[in-house]
Each structure stands twice: as structure tokens, then as C-alpha cells.
């Protein structure tokens, strides 16, 4: 156990210090509890799902139901299909945001032209606007354009979620990139495009990883857009279908769906982890 380095004159085991440690521990337990409960719930049988004991007989039956059967007798939801479409939509949205956002962030980070700051703020403001405000007009437009429940439509609308994140985080990385490196490449004889791909891009890899991951998570967790603009076309919506109605709620199935639904972002985070060398600093904090 690492010993805390004390300053001269400080005493180690005072009452305030111990109380502080206890308080932190308590908060830790409190924050983690819902997740623990959810996992437990996912492993409980239908009979035990409303109990509050910690002792129960675990079963994997719920996971099987969630992933294979077409939901319960009350609703019909193809969870598997929802998983697939969420994955496609979110990955697609992130890819589009990167392809468009990286050059945008480069331009915004390198060249300060008149109006660049207000343009950037405009982009960020998309994150502020409550989705409920725009969802009805969007529905009407999408319906009219025939984009309801399409991959193209979802990827497009998810840009409201993913693009600002990508551009804002990467802009900060590009701003911090010393100009000298690309200038050296120019003098070596490379064109500006080559200098960018050869020098600048590799150096912002952590930023790309961080923003891609964050964008994916936010897109994955989005509930409102898939709710209105698709037919259960996302994990977030599909989970709720297990709650059923008419007096019979399948908490254990919902919990199992929740656990499964949380997996893809988790897996992505673990794989991308080694590119996140500098950690997530949200781009706004300059070291």
C-alpha cells in the first residue's frame, strides 16, 4: 500500500483525516451500487426479480431470452437487431464525424479567421439545445424525405451529437501542435497535404481516439432520436420495451438487456485504451 508523503508538521491519524476517508468510501459504495444491483437483477429469476435480498439463485436464462426470443408475450422486440443497428449507426456516425471533423478541427486550430470563434461556438451549441425542442420538426422533415428508420437518416442526425465533440476536442490538439514540425516537412520538400498526413495526423492520434470513443458513447446512449425517428432501431429504445405494460414488468429482462447494451461501448473503450496516451482532457483544458 502506498504511503502518503506527509508534509513536515502534519499528523497522520487525526479524526478529520479518518472521517474524510470514511466519507469517500461511503460515496464510492453509493455511486457504484446501481450497477451492482442491475447486474444482480439480470441474474435473477422472474420469481425473485422483485426481492431485495443479496442471496439468490443466479440464472443466465434472462440473457438467453433477451438475445434470442422475440421479446416477451407482451411486446415484440428484436433485441439482436437493435444491437446491430445501434452499432452500425453509431460507428457510422463517428466515422463520418471524423472524416469531416478532422480537417475542420485542423483549420479551426491552425488559422484564426474572422468569425472562426463564433463558428466554433455555434457548433458547440448543438450540444446545448434540448433534443425535445427539435424532435418534432425533425420527424416531419424526415418523414417527408423518406428518411424515417433509415441508417442514412440516423447517421445524419447523430452528427448533432458526435460532430461537436470531435471538432472541439481535436481543435485543441491541433492548436497545441507546434507548427515547426509541419514547417520542417515543407522545407524537406513535402506538399502541405503530405506534411499534414505524415506529421500532424499521427501526433493527434490520442485525440482522435479520445474523441471517437466519447462520440461513440454519447451516440450509443442517445435515446430521443432513435425513439422518434426509428422503430426500436437502437439498444436504448429496445431496452425499454422489456418493461412491458399492463401490470407485468420484466425487470430482470430489462436489466439483462441493459447489461448487454452496455457492453459495446465498454469493449470499444478497452480496445482503444492504448491510444489514449494522454487521457481524456476534453480538449478544453490546456495543460
Amino acid at each position: 500500500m502506498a504511503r502518503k508523503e506527509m508534509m513536515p508538521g502534519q499528523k497522520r491519524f487525526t479524526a478529520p483525516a479518518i472521517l474524510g476517508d470514511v466519507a469517500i468510501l461511503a460515496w464510492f459504495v453509493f455511486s457504484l451500487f446501481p450497477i451492482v444491483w442491475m447486474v444482480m437483477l439480470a441474474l435473477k429469476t422472474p420469481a425473485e426479480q422483485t426481492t431485495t435480498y443479496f442471496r439468490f439463485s443466479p440464472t443466465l436464462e434472462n440473457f438467453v431470452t433477451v438475445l434470442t426470443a422475440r421479446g416477451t408475450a407482451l411486446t415484440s422486440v428484436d433485441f439482436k437487431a437493435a444491437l446491430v443497428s445501434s452499432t452500425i449507426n453509431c460507428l457510422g456516425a463517428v466515422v463520418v464525424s471524423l472524416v469531416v471533423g478532422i480537417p475542420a478541427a485542423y483549420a479551426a486550430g491552425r488559422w484564426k479567421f474572422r468569425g472562426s470563434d463564433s463558428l466554433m461556438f455555434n457548433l458547440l451549441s448543438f450540444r446545448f439545445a434540448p433534443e425535445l425542442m427539435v424532435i418534432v420538426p425533425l420527424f416531419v422533415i424526415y418523414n417527408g424525405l423518406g428518411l424515417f428508420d433509415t441508417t442514412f437518416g440516423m447517421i445524419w442526425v447523430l452528427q448533432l451529437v458526435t460532430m461537436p465533440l470531435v471538432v472541439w476536442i481535436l481543435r485543441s490538439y491541433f492548436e497545441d501542435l507546434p507548427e515547426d514540425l509541419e514547417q520542417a516537412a515543407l522545407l524537406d520538400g513535402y506538399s502541405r497535404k503530405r506534411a499534414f498526413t505524415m506529421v500532424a495526423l499521427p501526433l493527434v492520434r490520442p485525440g482522435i481516439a479520445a474523441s471517437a470513443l466519447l462520440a461513440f458513447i454519447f451516440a450509443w446512449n442517445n435515446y430521443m432520436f432513435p425513439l422518434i425517428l426509428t422503430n426500436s432501431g437502437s439498444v436504448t429504445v429496445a431496452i425499454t420495451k422489456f418493461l412491458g405494460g399492463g401490470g407485468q414488468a420484466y425487470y430482470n429482462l430489462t436489466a439483462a438487456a441493459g447489461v448487454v447494451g452496455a457492453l459495446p461501448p465498454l469493449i470499444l473503450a478497452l480496445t482503444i485504451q492504448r491510444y489514449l496516451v494522454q487521457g481524456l482532457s476534453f480538449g478544453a483544458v490546456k495543460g
Partner: protein
Amino acid sequence: MSTKVEELHGGGALPLRIRNVRKVYRTGKKGVEAVKSMNLDIEPGELITLLGPSGCGKTTTLRMVAGLETITAGDVFIGDTRVNDLPPSKRNVGVGFESYALYPPLNVRENLSYGLKAGRRVADPDKIVDELADRLEMRDLLSLRPASLSSGQKQRVALARALIRKPPVLLLDEPLGHLDAAARQHVRRELKLLQRQFGYTTIVVTHDQLEAMTLSDRMAVMNGGIIQQYGTPDEIFDDPANIFVADFVGEPSINLFPATVVRDGGRTLVRVGADVLEVAARTATDGAEVMVGLRPQDCHGKGVTKGLTGTVFVYEDLLEHGIARVNHPGVPDKPLVIQTPAELQLSPGASVTFSAPPNRIYLFDKDSGVRIR
């Protein structure tokens, strides 16, 4: 044991004693010994510097005296008080650290008076601030905020903040580092005069040997957590205890090359290739392989017929003097550097013979680096 140092001693200059101090940083299982076993006695009113390369333990030592690091073993006494367990605020030391933050919302004058007044009544703070600002040539900075200061200016303000309370002990970490050459010369002189006038017992930490030489009453050259030599600048420069000290102090650096000792009657000589130099060392044994230390500034060619003869391969004309790099057959892997008087203009390929006074040619043991006297 939380007595305030000043209350006991009425605020005059105090001696500082560091006894067998050791500092170990623990990271996981391993420990890093930053300071091995340090003993230092500083007289009241003395200005001493801790000089050494980065990582030698000098800043750690300073921080232990200031109270910003715990002391693993040993004792630090300010006056007669053992300060190991006192927090910095109770030690009454003035601290000028490079990273010592200036309060951003206050301007320079307010920063200085804040440091001055902290917790007590002061008669005329503005006058004191003005006087100090004049001495350090920072009058024009008084109304500015830290954000508008260059790093050199910030450094001067941090220095002023350390000085303003006339503390019995003053600790400065690289006080001249960010200043440009002209400002450095001026602040260096003023710092010395101020220290003289007010008599603070002062420790300055630096890696710049010129800064150490000009400021110190005595200096401690450190490496690897140990003091290599502690003495006046004259002693350190003219009488180095080992190769490290001889090499670290002096610019251009001392020439170091191997040679063989030859005893000839009462005289001691060293043979370098085909040439022979007389040296003052008396305890060297005949035939021993030693390292010779010869400073560029001690080399002269006037009327020298017996000395080292080599060929110039680069000559730099710095107008006030010249610096020549000379290839000598007895020193195959590097050139010897000599400082030449202004009127001697050399060109590459020229042959030059030079020597130095015997007491300025130093001999060191080849393995331990210790000076052979």
C-alpha cells in the same frame, strides 16, 4: 515544539546547520536516495550556493530546509532550533522558488506588500516596496499584474518577495535563471549588495557555475546527493578536490587528459606524448598513470619553448581573447582548448606551443578522480 524561530532570536541573522541529512523518496518498493548524507555549516550572514547538475540533490536539500519536504534522517537547525517537524510557516524563512506563485489578481506592488504584511503590522509598506523596487530596477513593474510579466520579470518579483521581509534565512532556487544576460549581471550585483547590507543567511541553488562563483561566500559543489567540495570560490576554482569539481566549474571547461608521471630529482613532471610539463604536485608516484587537468585560461604561449606543441584546428576570434582548439599527438581522442590573448591571431594548421604555471596543472587519480596534491 511549535516555537516560532524568530521569537527566540529577535530577528537577526542566524546560522544554519545541516547534520547527516538524508532524503529517500519511496516509489512503491524501491527507494531513490536523493540526498545521501549531507553535512553543512553556514555562518550567520553568509551566502552559500549549492551548485550541481540537475538531479544532484541540491533542490531537494533546499526544500528540506524550507519545510516543503520531509527529512528522512538527520537534523536541520536554524539557529539553535531543530526545525525538522516545523511546517514552513513557522520556520521564518524567505523563499524565492522558481515556481513560487504570484497572486494573479494582485499587481506587483500588492503582491510585495502582501508578503511584507502577512500577519503583522508594518509602518510604511509602500516606502519599503519602493526602495526594494529601485534596487532591483523594477519600478516600472509595480503597477502590472503577473499575467503581463515576462518570465524574467516574474523572477525579479519573486526574488523581491523573498527579500522584502528581511528574513533571517533566505532560500533562493535558481534566482537568475530566466533573466537575459544584461539583466542577470545587474540583478546578480544588486542581490549580492542587498545580501551584504541586510546580512541574511542565504542559500542559493543553481546549476550555473558562474552564478555560484560570483555570488558565493562559500559554495558546495554537489553530485549524486553528496557534497563533492565545500569552500570559497577561490578554493573551488584554484584547488579542486576531484575531477568532478574541476570539470563542473570554469568556462571554457578544464581540459582533462591522461598522462604519465615522471619524477626528476625534486621536480614532478608529466609526460604527454612526446612533451613534458612541470607540475606542482608532490605526492605523485613515478610512472603513475594520472589524469591531468589544465584550464584553457591558464595556458599561455609567451616565450614558451618547452611545453605542449600541437596544431590548431579551429580558432575562434572573440576579439577580447581567442579560443583555439589544438590537436596534440599525445591526446588522440579530443582537442585541447586554450584561451589566447587578443593579439595572437591563429589560423587552422598553425603550430602552437603552450604551457601553464606548475601550480595550475592539476593531477587526479585515474580511477577515483581524487586530486593528487
